[in-house]
């Protein structure tokens, strides 16, 4: 088990190194950020001054060495645009993103799991067909479109909810619905397929043969086991929602990390984009590592075969 943990941790570190190199290179491929920090007509000496100030006059390898060195020291750099430490910006926005992601996750659970369960139990029936339509719509309706429609209906016409920003719980309703809708659809599909698979297994048949009532078979034996992959997906979804709810946060002017990333990309704010991506990467790698270890702990075959 110890060896397994060490091996998986090494893989995680290598993954993060590759991620850091990839994001470092990719942001630089987009061009010179200094041209976006000035208006057309800016003087050459002003641009040169800015380039030197941010160390962009160094070669890429030197810049990368500084970047990695800083990360190891816990420093994600200073944002070009904000002139603030990236970590400070990130952690300032994190509670907002967590709040939105948790609300969206809750909504996706409330919609996706019961609907998926119902679809699986009433397979090919009306509930299943309705579930398929909901899943299809959830996965195909673009978030920005849904967001704008929600604003138009609930904010502009009905005047029930505020349009954007973050003041009280009412501001959370539309963005969490718009964000959770997509994930509800994916949870619905996974719950349905997972449940169908479990319901075909031998122990379910045995439970039925034993004469257990249908709801007990479904709830106690079927649903409980079908929930494992669903919860795994929900965990990863949560991390994605925290870090990459870009469109929804922009549409609803929600002050989260996704919007921070959007602004960073838009402004070619290298430290900001690098920092957000690396921190999101760390979160995802950490969650995956934890899941791997838990799986290996529960099922010894995993640690022996991998």
């Amino acid at each position: 088990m110890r060896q397994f943990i060490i091996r998986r941790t090494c893989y995680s570190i290598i993954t993060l190194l590759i991620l850091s190199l990839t994001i470092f290179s990719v942001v630089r491929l987009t061009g010179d950020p200094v041209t976006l920090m000035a208006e057309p007509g800016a003087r050459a000496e002003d641009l040169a001054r800015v380039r030197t100030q941010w160390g962009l006059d160094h070669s890429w390898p030197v810049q990368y060495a500084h970047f990695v060195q800083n990360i190891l020291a816990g420093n994600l750099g200073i944002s070009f645009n904000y002139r603030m430490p990236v970590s400070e910006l990130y952690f300032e926005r994190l509670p907002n993103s967590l709040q939105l992601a948790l609300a969206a996750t809750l909504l996706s659970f409330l919609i996706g799991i019961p609907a998926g369960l119902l679809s699986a139990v009433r397979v090919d029936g009306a509930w299943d067909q309705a579930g398929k339509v909901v899943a299809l719509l959830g996965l195909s309706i673009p978030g920005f479109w849904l967001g704008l429609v929600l604003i138009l209906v609930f904010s502009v016409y009905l005047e029930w909810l505020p349009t954007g920003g973050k003041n009280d719980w009412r501001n959370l309703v539309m963005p969490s619905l718009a964000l959770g809708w997509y994930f509800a659809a994916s949870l619905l599909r996974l719950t349905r397929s997972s449940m169908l698979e479990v319901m075909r297994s031998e122990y379910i048949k045995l439970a039925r043969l034993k004469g257990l009532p249908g709801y007990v078979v479904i709830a106690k034996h079927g649903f409980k086991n079908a929930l494992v992959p669903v919860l795994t997906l929900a965990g990863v979804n949560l991390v994605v929602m925290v870090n990459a709810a870009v469109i929804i946060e922009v549409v609803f002017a929600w002050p989260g990390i996704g919007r921070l990333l959007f602004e960073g990309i838009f402004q070619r704010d290298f430290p900001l984009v690098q920092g957000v991506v690396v921190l999101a990467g760390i979160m995802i790698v950490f969650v995956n590592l934890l899941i791997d270890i838990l799986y290996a702990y529960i099922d010894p075959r995993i640690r022996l075969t991998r």
Partner: protein
Amino acid sequence: MEHNSRRSAIALTRRDMLAGGAAMLAQLPALGATSAGAAPIGAMTLAWHTAMAPRWLDPQEHDGTATPDNFLMALHDALIKNSGTTLFDHPALAERYEFAKDAKSATFWLREGIKFHNGEPVTPEDVKFSYESYRGALASVFKAKTEAVDIVDRRTIRFHFKEPFLDFLLLFGSSNVTGAGWVVPAKYYQQVGPDGFKRKPIGAGPYKLASQQAGIKLEFEAFEHYYRPVHIKHFTMLAVPEAATRVAMLERGEADLVYGVPGELIDRVKKNTKLMLAPVLSGSFWLELVGFQDPKSPFHDKRVRQAISLAVDRAAINEAEAAGLGKISGNWINNDVQYGLEWPELEHNLDKARQLMREAGHPNGFTVDWLTPLAPFYARGERLVSQLQAIGIRAKLQVMERGVFLQRTQTGKQQWPGVQIIMHGARIGGTWSNWYESFFKCGGFNAADRLCVAELDAKNARYQASIDHAERKQLAEDIQRTILENHYLVPVFRHAFMCGIGPRIAAQKWQDVWPTITTGYAYPWEDIKLKG
């Protein structure tokens, strides 16, 4: 409608300056009018169109763009500034100034009793510190030309220059060009450092910062000791990047002012009787015919250049791109800068254009490899491609991302091979020469060697060396006239930055809220009132 009024004469003679100083004194409202007048009431929210960077709250690091002044005008104050129809020398912290005849010194007299938001008085020491430690746009120019800054007495400060610095006031007072004239509290700034200052800036402007969520929200409160009346007590600037959301906020009353209403939502705002659309004139757009000075270029022939100008349907572009609310300017340089020349509207005449093409030996037109518009104004590029087709000029549209475009325009002819047209757009403050030096001069930052007219560059050199105001004005106008008469550049139009005003704001017309002609923003903030 647009702002037509502008200062008729901007030649800075000593007599003018003294007269200006007297006029400034006459404009002064009573000191402490805020406390003496009605107390500020209510709240106003501005929906800003991008993220709000804390660096814009520090005039010491002004990036030379037209963005920070939206924030500086609320939080800070300058000795003189652009405000209303005054281009650069509206009295602010200085109640008057004097500019020496030989352009080698400038003296400013501070108002009596002015304070920073922390209660400390604004002193000449603060002015000296702010100027000497300024490190933003054009800092190198100010440093190279300034010999010393002397504190004459407790309200008087004098700047001495190594050589005549005729553009000093223009640059010093243009808040969308530099931040050198803006005053920060020296003691506090040194105590908290630049980073600390950006988090909790203290200024001497009409509003003090109550709280800041970096990039998201700025909350201000009226500064009771400001030297002019401030009418609204709470002022919030909220970053709302999505245009449709901003307009919805305006409709719902969650925002009172919004910037950047896109074309597809203009009608929605116009049709709503509770709202008011503010088509604020902004940057100018023009065509550069790359390498026209090369005899091998089809653009070398003046008749071809004129034909291109005649083929551009400016009214149609203005209608389609700005709901007809932009300005079909005859000049490629804005008229809100010193010596910016007014030029009559340019003709659209396809028959004449075709005739000129025939006379120039291109009866069937010719092929342009690429027409490249400034990003993200691709639709304007499409329209131009289509309009040029009417006289046989077959061009393909080349789309570049904004940063790439800006970088490419710094390169020379070799990087723009073949037959190419560039559609530029810019808003540069201060003086016409900032436009010429950047976009036309041979070797200019955004012109490189793509345009080289030795005769005009020689005139420009004379302009730069001259300290004779009349001569400078004449040279500036000569150069602009030559460019326009010879169609060296082809003006397209001046576009409108569409904004919206909500029902709670007191305004008869949009200019009541956007009175300043040198900006797209709604300052002076202290002048905005709520209804009732």
